[in-house]
């Protein structure tokens, strides 16, 4: 059947390209999540610091990057980032254009956005740590650094896993918007295949299914991580509604 051939792996099939694109989506999202984790940690620390201006700075960051459509941010970073890099190059004596690679621009944009969401996740996780456990750490003479490393970090990670799962989910779909930078991720490859073969529905449905597969795979990873992290928690007794 022609349809099967189109999405298959033969010489006329888009299967290989689509799988590669799904892999690209995975890579760009993972990079973005890593960038976002660093930013999120810094921003949540600022918001928890209690210093007025740091808190304000954190609030501005989270408000702006959660309040502006992702597409606009991607554009602003894709184009704005290039002109910034170019002018830095000029200042250092390099004549000509220095583009920002689409992968980097896309990962950076999605990462900055996910940083805003991760900041909230980390903050919530920190606040969920029992005050008593922190006091117990002080009471045996742990200094700040040790307390942070031994008590706070492990618990923040544990409480943050479900929230991080959601952020991953959001970023996965934000990465679809990176297609405007020309990066051959899943969304753009589906569009290109659709435009080149004029089989719009076929490729959009296949693209959608690939996204669902990525989602369920990552769900599985996060659920596993959550179960592992919650070994130490009481088995929750679900109340009947």
């Amino acid at each position, binding site marked *: 059947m022609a349809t099967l051939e189109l999405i298959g792996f033969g010489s006329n099939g888009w299967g290989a*390209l689509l799988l590669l694109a799904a892999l690209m989506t995975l890579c760009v999202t993972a990079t973005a999540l890593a960038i976002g984790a660093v930013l999120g940690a810094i921003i949540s620390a600022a918001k928890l610091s209690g210093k007025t201006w740091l808190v304000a700075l954190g609030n501005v960051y989270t408000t702006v990057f959660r309040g502006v459509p992702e597409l606009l941010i991607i554009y602003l970073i894709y184009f704005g980032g290039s002109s910034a890099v170019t002018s830095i190059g000029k200042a250092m004596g390099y004549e000509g254009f220095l583009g920002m690679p689409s992968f980097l621009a896309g990962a950076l944009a999605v990462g900055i956005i996910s940083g805003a969401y991760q900041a909230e996740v980390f903050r919530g996780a920190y606040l969920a740590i029992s005050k008593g456990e922190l006091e117990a750490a002080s009471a045996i003479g742990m200094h700040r650094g040790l307390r942070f490393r031994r008590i706070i970090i492990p618990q923040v990670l544990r409480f943050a896993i479900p929230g991080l799962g959601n952020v991953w989910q959001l970023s996965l779909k934000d990465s679809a918007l990176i297609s405007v930078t*020309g990066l051959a991720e899943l969304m753009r490859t589906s569009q290109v295949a659709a435009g080149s073969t004029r089989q719009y529905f076929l490729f959009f449905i296949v693209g959608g299914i690939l996204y669902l597969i990525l989602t369920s795979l990552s769900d599985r990873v996060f659920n596993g991580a959550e179960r592992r992290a919650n070994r130490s928690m009481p088995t929750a007794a679900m109340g009947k509604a």
Partner: protein
Amino acid sequence: KDWKSATITLEGAYAPWNMTNADGTLGGFEPELAKVLCERAEIECKLVASDWDGMIPALNAGKFDVIMDALSITEDRKKVIGFTIPYAATPAAFATAKDSPLANAAGTGATIKMTPGQTGVKEVDALKEAFKGKTIGIQAATVYAKFVYDNFGDIAEIREYKTGADRDLDLQNGRIDLGFDDAVYFANAFQSANDTLAFTGPEIVGSIWGEGEGLGVRQADTDLRDKLNEAIKSALADGTVKTLSMKWFKVDVSPQN
């Protein structure tokens, strides 16, 4: 700069002008023409695909050096980028569903010539009665959009699409009655729509669509533009453009003036 090498961008999803093959390579009229032009200009060219939406800003940001994506040469665009001479000029026409009452409207099969901003042409006005109250789909921010607004804005409902392909789907679905676009593009679209769509009314050619489709370059890169102009001239003169055009479009799109 002596332009030993250059990067050319195209969308890779605008068949048959340019498209992506299942193995990821680029094919179609423009990639093949680009190869010819680069050889003649003695430039080593690299083709990269990018998204239509950001193409012009990205050119100016320096991500590539040349746009080759059925880019019409217009006054608005000339304000932000430079153009070579055109390598193609295509007519435009209305399309509708084959079984629609609007099929075979007055002037179907004829060709008329128009100049920029021209209205009140009798062949066009002849369509007004039939198109009254109908919905016309156009691709947003194109020269064709301006034509439809100027001539039918008062009698028909106009709906703007982000891409021509979306509009074609809605034409098939019956959400709109008519579409107006590049006739070469349409001819190819009809095939993939299983020939349920057809042209209606006259084909319109002339300077109303600008000078035709040219290569876009940064305004500062006049040396590159000049090199490419020479290559285009020679490819037009020896019929290479015509050969490629017949291969991909089944008609000759090389500029006639």
